């Protein structure tokens, strides 16, 4: 999924467990139905954590996850859609 489809971006780079999930939940609550939240994290554990959170959360759909590299650092991107 490209960044253009995300309606909002949450930057949690430099934050470790459990903050990425907690801040994702906070941002997700503020979304309108159909919105897609992009979460940008440097925590490798966020791949499993945000997946698990989305599976357990009503109305949250994990659209995509990808691992990229920015300036030599691994960056994990998550795309979560709020159900219509």
């Amino acid at each position, binding site marked *: 999924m490209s960044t253009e489809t995300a309606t909002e971006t949450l930057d949690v780079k*430099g*934050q*470790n*467990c*459990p*903050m990425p*999930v*907690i801040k*994702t*939940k*906070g941002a997700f609550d503020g979304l309108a139905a159909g919105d897609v939240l992009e979460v940008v994290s*440097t*925590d490798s554990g966020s791949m499993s954590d945000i997946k698990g*959170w989305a599976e*357990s*959360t*009503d109305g949250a759909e994990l659209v995509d996850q990808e691992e990229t590299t920015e300036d030599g650092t691994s960056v994990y991107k998550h795309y979560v859609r709020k159900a219509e």
Partner: protein
Amino acid sequence: MSADTPPSSDDEFSPDDLATLHAQIEALETEVSDLRSEVDEGSADKMVIIATKGTLDMAYPPLILASTAAAFGYDVTVFHTFWGLEILHEENSKDLGLSSVGNPNMPLPNAIAALPGMDRMTARMMRNRIEDNDVASVEELIETSLASGVDLQACQMTIDLLGYDEDDFYDGVTTGVGAASAFQDMADADIQLLV
């Protein structure tokens, strides 16, 4: 009674019997619908943690689990008792101690770790490591937990025992609670942990 009982057996029920049956069915239907709405209303998942330790390393598991469970939509209560109170004490929480003595996983031999000033050094090293690894501070996790709706409770008996005052704790911490309210919460919870 066999399946081919003649329909004439209906005659065995008097109009009074039928009326009683109808009334019973109605009462049961009401009861079922009441129970159903009760179950729906009380469907929020719930977790209770009893936090009894106040060292720097032991402050983390209850706070991390509590704030995470809140993000999963759980109603969360953390009942802090004995040294667990240190986590909620605004001043002490920023300076929680840690000792290498009696911890065989630490690189220092006990004879050296027991020297004056070594506990402070151990705590400082751990705090630096926490910061270097982008792990949130205890204070941050408390603020996050409170903002996520976690009920952080301070056991009243231990507050009195340790000579603390209600004002010593973070704003938003619940005081004036005891074992009975903790037990009641635990009885209603899906997950109960003692840390």
